[in-house]
């Protein structure tokens, strides 16, 4: 397919890898933020093309993985109410809550439905006026405009049976939290291309100013990722720290303005809890006061729950790039995509799932 095959060209990938080898004189630790990029790296074995000194650590950019355990528990609680239809992206269904997951709730008779797009949730509300439809609105900046559109549309139509359980996270505050952490080892970031397609690049300038760290906005195909690594290596070897955009075919400096407009109309920035990481100031989005009638937290009077992760799961360290999935004693044994202990083993963007799908045989030997 056009604009895809070119970026999977083996010849170009090898040329890029060899250029990286030639340019690298010292070890560097780089982090790709987005779980989609982690999957490309594992699937194509890109890490194995790199010189040994270059370590890729995987970031927290998996929306399903960082959705708080409390939110999953709330969604399950709502789904089990007979008057509720809970609508979710498919990836969330197997994510473990503290006692159950949405798939098990569905098996117990809860009306849980999978949507590909938030507009489908609105449609379900429209055609089920006697039921309360709750949409589990999770995601990063990429998904926020679409989720905002669902609330905007419901308000415009005057729907009274539609609400959203919102758990939205933002990338730049997460990078900031990683950088100020005592345990940080990351020396350069590949910023997520689809997040930047929506919000643009301007928010990353502040990070470079404050931390003097190179950031390259990268795409999702093998050639994109290798080129982004090369751009970071060039900067690091030259002692530079600037913002570069590898993913120019999709990302502009100012981003997608109509998408930003609807996001700002519906959501406002707020403190946010990240599963496995904890609370990060001003790192999430919540519904504005004008949209409180669509806030499931208010409509259903859901209490604040505090719950604990299973002790054995090391997803907290995995999500912060401190450990690799294969460092976990439960990996591939007591924790698999069918029976996950933690969210990163479930999601198509989770680092543990990426290692499980593409590396578990290498690990077993």
């Amino acid at each position: 397919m056009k604009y895809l095959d070119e970026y999977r060209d083996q010849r170009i990938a090898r040329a890029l890898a060899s250029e990286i080898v030639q340019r690298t004189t010292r070890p560097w630790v780089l982090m790709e933020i987005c779980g989609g990029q982690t999957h490309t790296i594992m699937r194509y074995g890109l890490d194995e093309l790199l010189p040994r000194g270059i370590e890729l650590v995987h970031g927290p950019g998996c929306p399903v993985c960082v959705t708080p355990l409390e939110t999953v528990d709330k969604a399950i609680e709502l789904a089990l109410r007979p008057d509720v239809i809970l609508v979710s992206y498919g990836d969330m269904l197997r994510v473990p809550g503290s006692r159950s997951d949405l798939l098990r709730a569905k098996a117990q008779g809860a009306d849980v439905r999978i949507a590909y797009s938030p507009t489908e949730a609105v449609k379900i509300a429209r055609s089920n006026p006697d039921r309360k439809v709750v949409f589990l609105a999770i995601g990063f900046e990429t998904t926020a405009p679409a989720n905002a559109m669902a609330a905007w549309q419901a308000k415009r139509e005057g729907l009274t049976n539609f609400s959203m359980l919102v758990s939205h996270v933002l990338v730049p505050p997460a990078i900031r939290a990683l950088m100020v952490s005592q345990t940080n080892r990351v020396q350069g970031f590949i910023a997520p291309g689809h997040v930047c397609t929506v919000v643009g690049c301007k928010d990353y300038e502040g990070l470079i100013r404050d931390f003097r760290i190179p950031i390259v906005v990268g795409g999702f195909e093998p050639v994109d990722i290798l080129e982004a690594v090369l751009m970071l290596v060039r900067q690091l070897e030259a002692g530079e720290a600037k913002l570069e955009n590898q993913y120019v075919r999709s990302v502009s400096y100012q981003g997608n303005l109509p998408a930003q407009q609807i996001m700002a109309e519906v959501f406002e920035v707020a403190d946010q809890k990240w599963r496995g990481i904890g609370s990060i100031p001003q790192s999430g989005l919540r519904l504005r006061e004008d949209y409180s009638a669509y806030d499931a937290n208010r409509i259903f009077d859901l209490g604040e729950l505090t719950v604990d992760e299973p002790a054995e799961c090391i997803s907290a360290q995995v999500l912060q790039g401190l450990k690799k999935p294969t460092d976990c004693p439960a990996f591939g044994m007591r924790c698999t995509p069918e029976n996950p202990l933690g969210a990163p083993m479930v999601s198509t963007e989770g680092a543990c799932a990426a290692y499980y799908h593409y590396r578990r045989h290498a690990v077993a030997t």
Partner: protein
Amino acid sequence: MRAARVQFGGIVRQVSLSFVPEAGLGDYVMVHVGFAISRVDSLEAERTYKLLEEMGALEPELPPAEE
């Protein structure tokens, strides 16, 4: 809401063009959860690809990354 039929390597889906109102027939768009979020810049895509291709053409036989 302006919408379009978008083909994804064989599958055709209805996609909202709310965020990419300038998209037209024959354009390539990036789609996320049923919404187009960008129109792929064909000039940039081709320019990048040409640069990369030249790099690939210069080194037909490459040593393995590192042993």
